[in-house]
C-alpha cells in the first residue's frame, strides 16, 4: 500500500486517475481503516486528503449558507454553535454516528461516500438541499447529495473524481430541520430507520418541505409524496396521517437482526411524524 499526502484536490484526483489497483481516500478513516484492518478492502493507493488547505474549515458563504470542508470531524460540527443553530438536523444526524472517539475523526463526506443506506449523516443533508462539489479531471461541478449514493457501498462518483466540499444553502429565518433515527439501544448502533425533515413556513402554513428516509431502501430516499402531504398544511392530524402513509409507501426495506420489514415500515411513518413536528416547531422559531 502506498500512502499519499497530496496538497490539492487536483493532485489527489491525479493520483487516483493514475492508479491501477484499489484506491481509497483517507479523511477520518473510521470506515477505511476498519475495512483495511479486517482485510475487507486493502487499498494499493491510500490518499490522505487532510493536507489539502481548507479541508478542516466550516465557513459561512456569501449567500448565508455554509461550506463544510471534507475532513471536518463530527465533533467539530457539534462544537461549532452557529452551524447547529441554522441546521440542527444536520448536526444532530452527524452527532449520532459512533462514539466520542469516532466523532473526533468521522466526516460527513466519508459517511456519504461509504454508501450505507443507513448513514445517519446523509438524510438531513438531502433534506437541506445540500450539494457536494465534485472535483475531477475536467474541473469541479456541484452535484445534489441525493445523486451520490448508488446502492449499498456504491456511489456515482467516477474513479478519477472526489468530493471536495459540502455546500449547504442558507436556512433563512422561517425554516427548520430535524433528524431522528431508531435504534434498539440508546447509543452506538446502526439506524433501523432514519428520517430527516426540512420545512419552510409562512406563518402557520408549510410552504416547502423535504422528507428523507434512511435504512429502508438500497439508497437513502427523498420522498416527494411525503413532502407533498405537508405543503399547504398547518401540520394538522390529517397532514401527519398523510405524511406517515406516504413515508410507509416509500419503504422497501430488508429484514435483518435489527428489524423486520413490517417494523421498519411502521417506524418510518412514526419517525416522519415526530421529525416533522420538531422541524415545524423550529421553523416557527419555537425552541426545540
Amino acid at each position: 500500500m502506498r500512502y499519499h499526502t497530496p496538497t490539492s484536490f487536483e493532485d489527489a484526483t491525479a493520483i487516483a486517475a493514475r492508479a491501477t489497483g484499489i484506491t481509497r481516500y483517507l479523511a477520518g478513516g473510521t470506515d477505511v481503516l476498519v475495512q483495511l484492518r479486517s482485510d475487507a478492502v486493502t487499498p494499493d493507493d491510500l490518499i490522505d486528503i487532510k493536507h489539502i488547505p481548507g479541508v478542516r474549515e466550516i465557513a459561512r458563504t456569501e449567500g448565508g449558507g455554509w461550506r463544510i470542508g471534507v475532513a471536518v470531524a463530527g465533533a467539530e460540527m457539534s462544537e461549532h454553535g452557529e452551524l447547529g443553530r441554522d441546521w440542527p438536523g444536520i448536526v444532530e444526524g452527524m452527532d449520532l454516528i459512533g462514539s466520542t472517539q469516532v466523532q473526533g475523526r468521522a466526516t460527513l463526506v466519508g459517511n456519504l461516500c461509504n454508501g450505507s443506506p443507513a448513514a445517519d449523516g446523509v438524510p438531513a443533508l438531502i433534506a437541506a438541499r445540500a450539494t457536494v462539489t465534485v472535483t475531477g479531471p475536467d474541473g469541479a461541478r456541484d452535484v445534489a447529495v441525493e445523486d451520490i449514493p448508488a446502492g449499498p457501498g456504491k456511489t456515482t462518483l467516477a474513479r478519477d473524481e472526489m468530493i471536495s466540499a459540502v455546500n449547504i444553502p442558507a436556512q433563512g429565518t422561517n425554516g427548520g430541520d430535524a433528524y431522528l433515527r431508531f435504534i434498539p439501544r440508546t447509543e452506538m448502533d446502526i439506524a433501523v430507520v432514519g428520517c430527516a425533515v426540512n420545512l419552510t413556513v409562512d406563518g402557520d402554513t408549510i410552504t416547502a418541505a423535504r422528507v428523507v428516509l434512511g435504512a429502508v431502501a438500497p439508497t437513502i430516499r427523498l420522498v416527494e409524496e411525503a413532502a407533498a402531504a405537508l405543503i399547504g398544511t398547518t401540520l394538522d392530524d390529517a397532514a401527519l396521517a398523510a405524511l406517515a402513509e406516504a413515508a410507509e409507501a416509500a419503504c422497501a426495506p430488508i429484514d435483518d437482526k435489527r428489524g423486520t420489514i413490517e417494523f421498519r415500515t411502521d417506524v418510518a411513518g412514526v419517525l416522519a411524524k415526530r421529525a416533522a413536528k420538531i422541524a415545524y416547531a423550529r421553523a416557527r422559531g419555537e425552541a426545540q
Partner: protein
Amino acid sequence: MSKIHVTTTINGDEVEYLCDPRETLLDCLRDRVGLTGAKEGCGTGDCGACSVTLDGRLVCSCLVLGAEAEGKEITTIEGMAQGDDLHPLQRKFIEHAALQCGVCTPGILVAAKALLEKNPDPTETEMRYWLAGNLCRCTGYDKIIRAVMDAAEEMREAS
C-alpha cells in the same frame, strides 16, 4: 516496501519512528515506541481500549495510521501521572475499585480526562454518553462512573 519516517510529539517528547504505511498509530505506539499502555481490544474502533488524544482530540489509535501522526501532538496514558504522583482520576479508580482486569482502564482514564478538560462539571448522563465508546466487560460501569464523578469533584475543589 519502504517504511515511512514519522516525527511526532508524544506526551511532550519528540519521538521518531519508522512504520509500514498500513500500521496503525496503536501498533506504532506499542511496537515502535514501546508505550504499551494503550491496549488493542477490538481493533475496529468499537471498544475504546486504545484511546489517546491526537492534537487534543480523543480518538481510537487503532483507527489512525502511524503515518498520520507526522507533526501531531499525541497524549497517552503514560503521560497522565506526574512521576510517582497519580492523576486524581487514577487515584479514584483505585479507591473505588473501578477496575478488575484493567484492559479497558487506560482508555477510560484518557477518555475521562478529555471530558473533564472540556467540561469540569459534567452530569452523570453526560459522562455516561461520553464514555459510551469505552467498553468494560468486568465492572458493570457503575464503579467507573462513581470514580470519575468523584475525581471530577476533587479536581474542581482543587482548582
